[in-house]
């Protein structure tokens, strides 16, 4: 046996693309760069603006400490906005979740026209937000609302006192919540359906043989098994609703009298329409702690999930 004392030469450059240590990072670099530059940087910029006195009319970076945040918190409109956002999000999520679960349970059954039903049920989520909201705008119209027409025709409401869905404070809130829930629930249906079908049949059969009835099977067996997927969907859904701007903007623009103002629309109004970038950024940043909580919850549930 001969002993080789030759030392390996360093890799020639023509073999650069053969080395996975080179190609790996090279391939993922553009994605990371894109995200850092167009998501990370703007985020830092938002932080920067929020502690400055920047506005479109006076683009100065004078440092003002936490003054913007104090101004915002002192504003009654803002406090109303925060409450609104929470109310809308929670209500819409609950309704969306319930409808989603019921819808999934219904669509699990085989029946004639199931494919059509599923396609129709998915529509609200599939279709662009602004276009669907415009349809609701028309449906809530002060004069020609088809909802009002039906209520009057059935006798529940008097023609002279027809509800101004988008013009009265509490009705406007209801209207916005309904539209949000309407958009959300198909997503819930899809997720629950996916969850239900992923439960192994033998587990269900074993439960039936063990004597578990419909409700017990549902709540003690199926729900725990699909909990991770549902939780992840819930977190995403909540984030989407909490940060949404489109529905409120198109239906009520935050009115009447800020009763439907949400964080997104208020930030838009202050930061873009009024040009007060500093305060606008401060408002936007109130979204952040909430998002952080969502992220932590999401990570925890991802860990627990058996993929």
């Amino acid at each position, binding site marked *: 046996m001969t002993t080789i004392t030759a030392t390996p030469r360093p890799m020639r450059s023509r073999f650069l*693309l*053969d080395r996975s240590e080179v190609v*790996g990072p090279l*391939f*993922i670099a*553009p*994605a990371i760069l894109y*995200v850092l530059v*167009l*998501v990370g*940087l*703007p*985020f830092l*910029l*938002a932080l920067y*603006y929020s502690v400055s006195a920047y506005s479109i009319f006076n683009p100065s970076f004078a440092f003002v400490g936490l003054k913007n945040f104090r101004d915002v918190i002192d504003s009654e409109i803002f406090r109303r906005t925060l409450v609104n956002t929470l109310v809308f999000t929670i209500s819409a999520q609950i309704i969306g979740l319930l*409808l989603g679960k*019921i*819808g999934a349970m*219904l*669509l699990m*059954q085989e029946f004639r026209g199931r494919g059509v*039903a599923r396609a*129709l*049920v*998915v*529509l*609200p989520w*599939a*279709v*662009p*937000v*602004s*276009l*669907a909201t*415009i*349809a609701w705008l*028309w*449906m809530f119209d002060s004069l*020609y609302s088809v909802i009002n027409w039906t209520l009057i025709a059935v006798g529940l409401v008097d023609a002279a006192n027809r509800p101004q869905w988008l013009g009265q404070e509490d009705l406007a809130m209801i209207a916005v919540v309904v539209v949000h829930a*309407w958009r959300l629930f*198909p997503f819930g249906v*899809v997720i629950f*359906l*996916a969850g239900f079908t992923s439960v192994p049949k033998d587990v269900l059969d074993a439960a039936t043989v063990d004597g578990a009835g419909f409700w017990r099977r549902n709540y003690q067996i199926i729900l725990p098994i699909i909990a991770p997927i549902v939780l992840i969907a819930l977190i*995403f859904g909540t984030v989407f609703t909490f940060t*949404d*701007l*489109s529905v409120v*903007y198109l239906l009520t623009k935050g009115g009447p009298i800020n009763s439907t103002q949400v964080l*997104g629309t208020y*930030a838009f109004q202050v930061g*873009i329409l009024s040009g007060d*970038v500093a305060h606008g*950024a401060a408002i*936007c940043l109130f*979204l*952040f702690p909430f*998002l952080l909580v969502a992220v932590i919850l*999401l990570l925890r549930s991802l860990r627990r999930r058996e993929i």
Partner: protein
Amino acid sequence: MLRLAKKLTAEGSFYAAVATLVVFAAFPFYWMLITTFKADGDLYDLKSVPYWFNAAPTLEHIRYLFAETLFVQWLMNSALVGLCVVAITLIVALPGGYSLARMPARSAETLGIGIFLTYLVPPTLLFLPLSRVVSRLGLQDSLWSLVVIYPTFTIPFCTWLLMGFFKSVPREIEEAAIVDGCTVMGAFVKTVLPLCLPAILTVVIFTFTLTMQEFVYALTFISSSEEKPVTLGVATDLIRGDIFYWGELMGAALIASVPVAIAYNLFLDRFISGITGGAVK
């Protein structure tokens, strides 16, 4: 007899429940459809039953939409932006997803989750600083601002989706290609990509529909009518003062929604298996 009655009521209530849900979901679209074809006189008549036509249906709104508004321009804008964003997303997400799929597990998971998390950062947090970035780049009021910004939400999700699909290709095939004479990149292009074409198609459709639906960035960056994508144009421009052109509005909404809805339905199962990580068989 009682059995039959019970069965009928059970079935009846089942179908009733399904019907209620379906009506709740789909009625606005029916409303869109009917409004589009109703003559103005019929549309704005408070005394008529709104659920069906009381006068002959008309194509006037559609004609007006196509001939006298910028609707076609908006559709083309959206399509252009969609195609460009799809191209950018593919160029970045294909190699990115592959890199994550073949990287050692620990770092891939961290990076993967990191990229996935950016999906949670909403436009309403970023639109303010991005509007400053966009005007600094001189892309204000231009479609190209959207082409640059939209990939920020398509790339993360598509990279994550593609990572899942690429992982399912057995490594042996790539190794065979490497031993047979390919570089790592060559093996990727010649063996993994052809085997994942359905997944890539899903990503393309998904990106396109995401782009077509976006509203907030469009609202923030674009003001002139000719540059608006269809979601923005329809929502803001079909109004003269206080008067909404409902017939045209509904027609526009309908036409712009239909392709997206069809695409979603066709690819729904693929989306789901992508989202749930293939756990659903």
